[in-house]
């Protein structure tokens, strides 16, 4: 008999869903600095603290650089920590993002992805998020508000797992998810408590004082970086394990490094990351109705990059189209480059589509059209949907 779980459902915009997850994760120190479109998340967290629903120190700090620096310090001293940012804020944090990654401390940061100036744009793309791909952070992207909630809770657990000990960035598309209200099934507080036990990590110990982050001679530096790489590799299986555990608790399916949608018997596939994966799924259904054997591979975890999974799913396809909301200028779509590298040695042709920059609208129709062009032999290696 199938046990039907009656989950508590809330109608939440993305920012509030993440704030709710953060509240349940019980961080002890938060750093807040406003930037669109993450601001309402921090307002909600401030409200939780003011009402006594969350017992945490909230540092209302003077910049994003300091926001990351302050939670880095708090994390060293044993606190569970959280902050959120976007776009220019993430860039301004940049130095401390690398600092925290290099030191490998458990930190969770939500990034409401947003285009980078110039010119100014407050709308969504992934340029900010992907610019931090080499900062020794685990990076995950949510498809919808539910996932943003779920991944936030998972992020704390992954970050603090002793086999990993890395900061985690939870990306979710600015405005498209941050400001869209969805029905979200939430865990009970006690379930989160059992999934996420209190944090053990503390580096500031007066009985055993150590120097944190001193100068490393070349041999040591290289070794420390190598350990970071190994930790990232280990994280792949740990993330899958933690996500499976989350599936069991929440009764939700399909939480892994990647998600496959109708791709088992597919001959052609989209590869996407983030909110437009939903649009791509609609396109897949429509293409299937047309007789085109399309599928979708959604990349949920971008760092560590799940290249084995990608190769496994895609290496026998007749064509793969990677949709990027960001570009490496002078090279191409960032995700596309990664997918090509994962498929190195296979015969699968990989096409790159760059679209949706600065919030430019992309609909299922766009996905359909590109796939039809591929099937008809009319798709160029790199296309910008302008």
């Amino acid at each position, binding site marked *: 008999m199938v046990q039907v779980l009656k989950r508590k459902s809330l109608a939440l915009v993305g920012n509030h869903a993440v704030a709710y997850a953060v509240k349940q994760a019980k961080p002890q120190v938060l750093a807040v600095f406003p930037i669109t479109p993450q601001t309402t998340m921090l307002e909600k967290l401030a409200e939780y603290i003011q009402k006594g629903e969350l017992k945490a*120190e909230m540092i209302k700090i003077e910049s994003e650089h300091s926001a990351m*620096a302050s939670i880095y310090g708090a*994390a060293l001293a044993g606190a569970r920590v959280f902050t959120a940012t976007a776009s220019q804020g993430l860039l301004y944090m940049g*130095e401390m993002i690398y600092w925290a990654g290099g030191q490998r401390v458990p930190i969770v940061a939500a990034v409401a992805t947003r285009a980078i100036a110039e010119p100014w744009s407050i709308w969504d793309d992934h340029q900010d998020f992907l610019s931090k791909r080499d900062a020794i952070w685990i990076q995950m992207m949510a498809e919808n508000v539910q996932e943003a909630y779920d991944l936030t809770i998972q992020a704390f657990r992954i970050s603090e797992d002793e086999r990993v000990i890395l900061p985690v960035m939870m990306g979710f598309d600015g405005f498209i998810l941050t400001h869209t209200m969805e029905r979200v099934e939430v865990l009970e507080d006690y379930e989160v408590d059992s999934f996420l036990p209190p944090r053990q990590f503390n580096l500031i110990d007066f009985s055993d004082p150590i*120097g944190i982050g001193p100068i490393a001679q070349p041999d040591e530096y290289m070794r420390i970086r190598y350990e970071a790489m190994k930790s990232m590799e280990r994280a792949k299986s740990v993330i899958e394990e933690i996500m499976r555990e989350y599936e069991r608790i929440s009764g939700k399916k399909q939480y892994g490094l990647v998600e496959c949608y109708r791709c088992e018997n597919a001959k052609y596939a989209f590869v996407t990351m983030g909110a437009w994966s939903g649009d791509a799924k609609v396109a897949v259904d429509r293409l299937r109705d047309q007789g085109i054997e399309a599928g979708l591979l959604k990349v949920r975890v971008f760092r560590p990059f799940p290249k084995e999974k990608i190769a496994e799913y895609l290496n026998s396809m007749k064509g793969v189209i990677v949709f990027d909301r960001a570009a490496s200028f002078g090279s191409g779509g960032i995700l596309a480059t990664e997918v090509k590298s994962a498929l190195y040695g296979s015969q699968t042709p990989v096409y790159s589509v760059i679209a949706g920059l600065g919030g430019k609208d992309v609909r299922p129709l766009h996905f359909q059209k590109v796939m039809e062009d591929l099937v008809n032999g009319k798709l160029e290696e790199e296309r910008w949907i302008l």
Partner: protein
Amino acid sequence: MSLITQPKRIPKFFRGNAACPGCPIPRELDILLEELGEKTVLVVPASCSTVILGDTSGMPATVPVVHSAFAAPAAIASGIVRALRMRGEKDAIVTVWAGDGSTGDIGFAALSGAAERNEDIFYVCYDNEAYMNTGIQRSSLTPKGAWTTTTPEGKREFKKPLPFIMAEHKIPYVATASIAYPFDYQAKVKKAKQIHGFRYIHLLSPCPPGWRFDSSLTVEIAKLAVETGVWPLFEIENGEFRLTSVSKTLIDKNNRKPVIEYLKLQGRFSKLTEEEIKEIQESIDEMWEEIKAMVKK
């Protein structure tokens, strides 16, 4: 044979380190840590002290040391202190130990932010008046007229008056100190230790290679900085200004030595003209007029 000896002061911090000959930093840190005790966390941004405090092979400190990015120490300290307080460590003292470049230039936003929030941290700036760790480039705290590698003709602007700027943040405690007056410095650390909120001590730290003087003269030059009135020793406690130590006697101009005595020992001032020296003297006298007004208040 038993000997009755005076209790010997054992340096807590350094028995061998990578500081230059004549560098006051190890001594300054020693005094600081002796006064603050073992429940101290040092937050140290990129500076000479990063090197002095050792590499991954070990550290000479007996307290936790958190190395910090150049711009970040006040923010990192803010986070550490909040987390320690959450953990119930009420008496731990989180102390930033930063040079003038981090304090007055790149880290100034974080410093000002932490002061404005009145974070419960203790900030000590050891001011050697230039970016010494990278090789003597000017900072906003380099004094007017001083040679540095980026001001080969002498700096044109005045030194940023950081202790006064910090006092304008209305933090509970601001003080200046000098390695030549260790008891004055020690007393100020002791006092600051008892205060909650943001505390700031600004130490003038003569640098033999950077200031171009013989490494045996560190203390003498530090002393002359005070005696000539270049570096007044004072504290501002809850807004109340008070001169300390020998500086109390220097309100009377006749008690101040002429600034030339301080300048002439340092190679960095060797190119100053008579006119420029006069201008520096006038600016010191002007500053003391302002101090006089503050003392009277």
